């Protein structure tokens, strides 16, 4: 099925048009450079078979944004906001001329120790606060989504057996909610279980796919399957499809769902670049993101 919008203009073309020469991808048209949006756009363009050369230019601009120590930050003024680093590593992976920035990014992630890890149980909280995951922002607590991003980057970039990779797996399993799914990373507060979110649950499932036995995440799969028919937002839908496909779940017409959500832009306005990129990835990666990137690497050898 062709991935077209109602104007018959390809979503791939619309994504390419967001690229700004000499800048990279903004998250919204007219905005400034965003390394996370640029990373997701690169991955999406590659998955969709873009031949425009935009992905290569974007990789170069992403490399220009990398700090000496390997981190990639939201902006130069915000060095602690280094959560886009694993996304940049994923975007550089598979392009040999960018092995150096990728390896620097991976080294930064493996050696990262600017964490607000607590010594022991905290009043009202039930999760294990001593596990060393990764935060959104340096010097704060580790959370589910940035840890999952790092886990994706480490395993795709060949560090699946590193002890820090195991830390990521431990954190995600510790933060899985008893009834299934993940949220930002808070499980029980003052005796009450918190609720999962589809975007964190899909990402968590995708990051863990193949690393833990399926029964260990079965409730999360069931939660996400139950949510899928209700999802109208691009990021949540994309992560739900990627996460479930990563566990070989058969879904009911995922491409039709993606087209429906893409078509909503006509009413709601254009989506963020990272959301568009994720939807394109969900469209093309029908075995999940990690398997897709691994297959691509094998094909390149």
């Amino acid at each position, binding site marked *: 099925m062709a991935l077209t919008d109602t104007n018959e203009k390809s979503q791939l073309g619309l994504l390419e048009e967001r690229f700004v020469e000499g800048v990279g991808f903004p*998250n*919204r048209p007219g*905005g*400034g450079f*965003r390394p*996370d949006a640029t990373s997701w756009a690169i991955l999406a363009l590659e998955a969709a078979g873009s031949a425009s050369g935009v992905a290569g230019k974007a990789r170069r601009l992403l490399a220009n944004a990398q700090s000496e120590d390997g981190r990639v930050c*939201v*902006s130069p*003024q*915000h060095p*602690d*906001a280094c*959560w886009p680093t694993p996304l940049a590593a994923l975007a550089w992976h598979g392009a040999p001329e960018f092995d150096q920035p990728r390896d620097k990014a991976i080294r930064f992630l493996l050696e990262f120790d600017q964490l*607000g890890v607590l010594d022991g149980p905290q*009043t*009202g909280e039930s999760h294990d606060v001593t596990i060393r995951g990764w*935060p*959104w*922002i340096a*010097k*704060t*607590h580790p*959370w589910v*989504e940035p840890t999952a991003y790092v886990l994706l980057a480490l395993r795709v970039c060949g560090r699946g057996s590193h002890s820090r990779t195991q830390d990521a797996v431990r954190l995600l399993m510790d933060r899985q909610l008893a009834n299934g799914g993940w*949220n*930002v990373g808070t499980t029980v*507060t*003052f*005796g*009450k*279980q*918190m*609720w999962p*979110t*589809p*975007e*964190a649950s899909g990402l968590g499932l995708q990051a863990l796919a193949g690393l833990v036995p399926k029964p260990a995440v079965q409730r999360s799969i069931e939660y996400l399957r139950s949510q899928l028919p*209700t*999802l*109208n*937002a*691009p*990021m*949540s839908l994309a992560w739900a499809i990627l996460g479930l496909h990563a566990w070989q779940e058969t879904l009911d017409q995922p491409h039709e769902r993606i087209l429906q959500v893409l078509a909503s832009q006509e*009413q*709601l306005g254009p*989506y*963020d670049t990272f*959301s568009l990129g994720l939807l394109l990835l969900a469209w093309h990666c029908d075995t999940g993101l990690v398997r897709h990137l691994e297959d691509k690497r094998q094909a390149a050898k």
Partner: protein
Amino acid sequence: MIRSRLKKQPSGKISRRELLVDGLAAVGIGTTGALLRNYLHERSRKARVFIAKAGSYEADLISPIADGLRSLGIGPAQVRGKRILLKPNFVETQRGTIHICTRPEVVFAAVEVFRRLGAATVLIGEGPGHCRDTDRVLDEAQMAEALVENKTPFVDLNNDDLVVRPNAGGRSGLATLTLPATAAQADWIVSMPKMKTHHWVGVTLSMKNLFGLMPGIVYGWPKNVFHWAGIEQAILDIHATVKPQLAIIDGIVGMEGDGPIVGTPKHAGVLVMGQDLAAADATAARIMGIDPLKVTYLRSAPGGPGAIAAQNILQRGETIAAVRTDFQLLDAIPAHLGLRLAQSL
């Protein structure tokens, strides 16, 4: 004390007696005039807070908000040509609930009031604290289609362009605060929280709601930088730096117990408005049966405890006593202990 003899008007309008007093003071007749001038000087220092009854979200909400603004002295002269940013609370959603997020009915009633007052632009902006997917939050909060129907722009403040400002509060140790460009460019920021208890700081109202103004790409999901910097200090710093102009608190159905997410619905049937956010929050807390002087960040707000003392806030509209609805506080939550307001206050 003169103020204690003044009759409050349910509509929040100034009474004829008050007008007479003002008039006498204006002409300054003898000793009486001096006394009245002192009285007026004292009153001018007091924050005004307006309480409106609103039984449900199906009720007319435009009129009480318009009445409230009028009572606070906000009219076309103050609003015309201004760029207004309304900041509701969409911290996290659960489809079908009405007690977690500011309801669209309240938000769009405020949009309409500001448009009628001649605002150049009325925007809605939020940076959900617990959800990476703002589009999903808007969908589940029943905002997505309402934004289209009402032709109102929405800005995802978590993902906006960034503007770095010196920290004007200086309480948390953060040297600067990074604001979304939309907030930095707004003439007025209107905090529109849900009336809720909070398991870390006691209550979350218009001041705490400002956490959601701050960009997630710089502060995280949740905005954990502020937790490490000290939640209460960060609330005060953001308030001092952002300088919001108005609070409109959705207390029609609030949340009691283990707020701000997994508590239970509580019908209070009120909207609370004020230009001094600490005073508006103090009034809302009293309506909830919570003593604002026991809430650390309210007690530490500009002006100190005196500024939020009951006798130092000019209550307009309904009286607190008429609408007080005690919200459940939990013994298991340390931040709730000792917050209950004495029944006579």
